């Protein structure tokens, strides 16, 4: 069974820590179903080399993913995508969207927008999506 190939693109500029970017991208791939359960992930060293970053960063990313229950690690063998139930999967997806929306809400409050103004903007964005 070969190692699955996924695209991970990180950026050095910006505020999001690199390990966080990796976590989010792998998490998204798992939640989209691109990475089936028990699929081996690249080793932390290989990932570090390919992304040209420190192995401590990739290690931290994998530790985060493991904490969230998305991957598991076997010492000496590597890390693999975890097999978790669909219910939890949906829950995670919703949770992710909720978190993002909360961030938007916070940003809007900071800028002084009211809830009504926010709703209008939201409807407009949803409309564009069709």
């Amino acid at each position, binding site marked *: 069974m070969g190692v699955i190939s996924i695209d991970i693109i990180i950026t*050095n500029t910006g*505020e999001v*820590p*690199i*390990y966080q970017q990796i976590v989010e991208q792998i998490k998204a791939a798992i939640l989209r179903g691109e990475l089936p359960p028990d699929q081996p992930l690249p080793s932390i*060293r*290989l990932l*570090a*080399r390919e992304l*040209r*970053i*420190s*192995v*401590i*960063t990739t290690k*931290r990313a994998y530790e985060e993913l493991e904490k969230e229950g998305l991957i598991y690690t076997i010492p000496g063998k590597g890390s693999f995508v975890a097999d978790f139930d669909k219910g939890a999967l949906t829950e995670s997806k919703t949770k992710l969207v909720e978190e993002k929306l909360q961030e938007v809400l916070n940003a809007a409050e*900071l800028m002084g927008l009211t809830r009504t103004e926010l709703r209008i903007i939201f409807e407009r964005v949803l409309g564009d999506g069709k």
Partner: protein
Amino acid sequence: MTAILELKDVTKRYTGFALEGVSFSLEPGYIMGFIGPNGAGKTTTIKLIMNLIRLDAGVIKVFGLDSRKHEQEIKQRIGFVYDESHFYENLTIAEMSRLIAPFYRSWDWQVYKKYVDLFGLPERKKLAQFSRGMKMKYALAVALSHGAELLIMDEPTSGLDPLVRSEFLDILREVIQDERRSVLLSSHITSDLDQIADYVTLINGGRIIFSKSKEELWEEYALIKGEKSLLDSGLRPYVVGLKESQFGFEGLVINKEEAQRIAGSRAVFERPNLEEIMLHCIRGKGNGRFGA
């Protein structure tokens, strides 16, 4: 886990310059970047590790062994690359390697040949005719040909063009895939270390300013730019290398969390690269506190 390299209160005194209380350690499987301005003590520290000069005080342990008592055993397992070539210029690399090989228990001619071919080194040319970059590659080939667990490099890429430096980093990335190996790399070209280092130790004026992982650095340190009024509302002690201008101030904070709490959205925070960290830490005096 035993550190592969450990320095405790290392002291070396010359007239006009001294290393004082230098302490840091490196765990196996990582690359440590050793940075600092010229004359800060990087080469002196490396010479002490290699026992080329004598300690005035302190302890250095390599592979858990005392560097003075187990010198030969340690050197069997170390590969070194210095900034100058110390090989005989009037010999070819074939002759030079034949002189060196017998002293290493674990010398492997096949591995050596692999690197010589990979680096494209001419076996029958005298070393005097090698370019600086090629001499460094030869030193690296030798350092990698006897199963060394610790690589010690003192400014190996200074004076080399960006292409060669990039090749060097690629080779190092390949080398470090083997997690039994560790690297101590001193360089004033911090952009190289931005990419490759796992840990960073900054030395200045013979003293260690900090020794942290890059993750820790990015977590705790940040470039800050903001309104001058912020300085007087409790932010000043947290800023190192402060520069005030007509339009505001900029500097480095070493406790990002605290600084963000105080400044909120009135200041801009950016992830610093190693050069910026080094400049601010060295420039800064009196502002900001450095933990042990």
